[in-house]
């Protein structure tokens, strides 16, 4: 088992290098970072040249990638931009935990990302929990009553949820629960931000502002999960050990929730484990619509200004999380199911 984990971790390294190289190549042409640096004032040609040298953007792509990967404190850089390198660099590179500095805010990328991660996680984990709870409930319910009227209605509704574009459900829920409720004089939900600036960032405010984005995200995820749970439950319920449990005269409740659900939960664990790291990236579209200050919006804001280190930082964080969670899922799976051995 230990050897297996080490092997998987080692396999992950070339994978992450391919990912970082591909993304770094793409990032080189996403826009001109200098054009957006000066705000409204247009950059003068000699300033532009100086800035390009100072930021190291005049270096060949391979050198830029190397600096990003292992830092530039082992070589001289051109800090004043006169064309002559005079002092040693300060970047330590992503391999030594330095994600670089944002071109836009001049803050360390790690700090920018660190500020946003809690906001994203609170939104995404809440959606994931709501989704799983409802999906378990309805998935089991419709599996036990396969082809009943309610099962058929649910299947049709799930198809709609599954096909629903996230912005459409977001806009509709905003329209109903904020605009129409306000018109009808009912208590209405807030549509943008994390809290009301006049009240401050209290737990109640954040929870209240979370309702609509969590609702929208859950509708989208719910359909896929629920269909999956229904089919695994159907499969498990036709197994011999369930028939044995029933014929032993065990109460139905015990058969369903102890014997069946425990076995059906194995594939569900895999599904959740593989989905979790992607939550880190946030929901780009949802965060944009609800003006939620998370990673997805950080990504969009800095991509539009060609801020390479921030965008690369976010994408690499998610990529590493995906690799790590794939291994963790395998470990948990082996722990839950003693039949599985990694040798």
């Amino acid at each position, binding site marked *: 088992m230990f050897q297996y984990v080490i092997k998987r971790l080692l396999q992950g390294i070339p994978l992450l290098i391919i*990912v970082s190289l*591909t993304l770094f190549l793409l990032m080189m042409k*996403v826009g001109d970072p200098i054009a957006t640096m000066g705000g409204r004032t247009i950059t003068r040609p000699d300033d532009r040249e100086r800035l390009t040298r100072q930021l190291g953007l005049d270096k060949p792509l391979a050198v830029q990638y190397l600096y990003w990967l292992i830092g530039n404190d082992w070589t001289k850089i051109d800090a004043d931009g006169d064309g002559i390198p005079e002092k040693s660099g300060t970047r330590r590179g992503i391999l030594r935990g330095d994600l670089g500095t944002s071109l836009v805010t001049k803050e360390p990328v790690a700090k920018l990302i660190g500020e946003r991660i809690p906001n994203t996680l609170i939104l995404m984990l809440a959606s994931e929990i709501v989704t799983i709870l409802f999906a378990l409930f309805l998935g089991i319910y419709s599996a036990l009553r396969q082809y009943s009227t309610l099962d058929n209605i649910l299947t049709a509704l799930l198809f709609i949820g599954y096909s629903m574009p996230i912005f459409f459900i977001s806009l509709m829920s905003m329209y109903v629960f904020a605009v129409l409720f306000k018109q009808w004089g009912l208590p209405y939900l807030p549509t943008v931000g994390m809290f009301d600036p006049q009240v401050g960032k209290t737990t109640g405010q954040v929870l209240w502002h979370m309702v609509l984005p969590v609702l929208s995200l859950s509708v989208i995820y719910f359909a896929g999960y629920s269909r999956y749970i229904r089919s695994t439950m159907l499969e498990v319920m036709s197994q011999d050990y369930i028939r044995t449990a029933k014929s032993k005269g065990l109460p139905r409740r015990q058969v369903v929730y102890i014997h069946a659900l425990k076995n059906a939960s194995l594939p569900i664990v895999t599904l959740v484990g593989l989905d979790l790291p992607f939550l880190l990236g946030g929901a*780009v579209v949802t965060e944009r619509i609800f003006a939620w200050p998370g990673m997805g919006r950080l990504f969009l804001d800095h991509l539009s200004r060609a801020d390479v280190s921030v965008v690369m930082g*976010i994408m690499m964080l998610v990529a590493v999380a995906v690799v790590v969670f794939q291994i963790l899922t395998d470990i948990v799976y082996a722990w839950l199911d003693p039949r599985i051995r990694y040798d």
Partner: protein
Amino acid sequence: MTAHSTSLSVPQSADDLATEPLTLWQLGWLRFRRHKMALFGGVLLIALIIFAFGGSFLYTEKYANFNDTSQRLQPPSSEHPFGTDSIGRDILARTIYGGQISLFIGFVAVLIETILGILVGALAGYYGGVVDAILMRFTEALLIIPTIFLLLVMAKFFGGQIPEIHIFNRAFSGSVIVIVVIIGATSWMYLARIVRAEFLSLKEREFILAAHATGTSNFEIIFYHILPNTIAPIIVSSTLSVANAILAEAYISFLGLGVQPPTASWGNMLDNSVKYLDSAPWLWFFPGMLILLTVLSINFLGDGLRDALDPRSRVI
């Protein structure tokens, strides 16, 4: 005894009892037409295609792009059945021309995706070894980056590089081509895995061994002997991919990095619609609803095809 009745002979063996075997397509159709939701999806999709392409006869593209700021943000009326947008363009006419672009992007992107997926999957599965290792590591690498990130970065990368294109006296924004290519280039990974798995098992079968023995070239074995046997999962996966491609176009256009105006797409009609959430709901309702209906119909269709073309299914 008449001549006619003499032909009614008693079955001699079990072979005589068996009817002519049905082909995959005959079997598929028999199962497919029982699938009510899939039939509904098919009819709905045809209706949407007629709406988008037949609508050209009702409104000209010039009318769809004609803006009259004195008519901005008009609610639906008999003159403008779907209302007008923030610069006074008719939304019904724009959903028609936007639908053509969205459907075009959906189908052509999937064509690219399918070609890439088949090529990568077939080469990796058939040759194995180093080829397989390199192609599959690259596939996995692309799979661990969230697709929306990849799409947005690539949209920025290629954005504004392709000039306007003129076909049939109509001008299309070059961004349509960019979007088609990037959606195709970021979605082939799942198909490649499916095709690879099929190739891995099929290449060990006797009929491939026989083909090798008769000196058939690798090219012929891949494309004429193995590929036709993997067609069912490819069709199902590609059908469902059309829905995802239409959604992907909508997401990037919604974020302002997709199809650029004046060319309309269902996605870019929704750009900035959040601003008019309460004042002009018709702005986002109609294009959003059309995207939902299209994706829904394709998902129904794909689900029906999956059941119908599954070779393990014994139900007729």
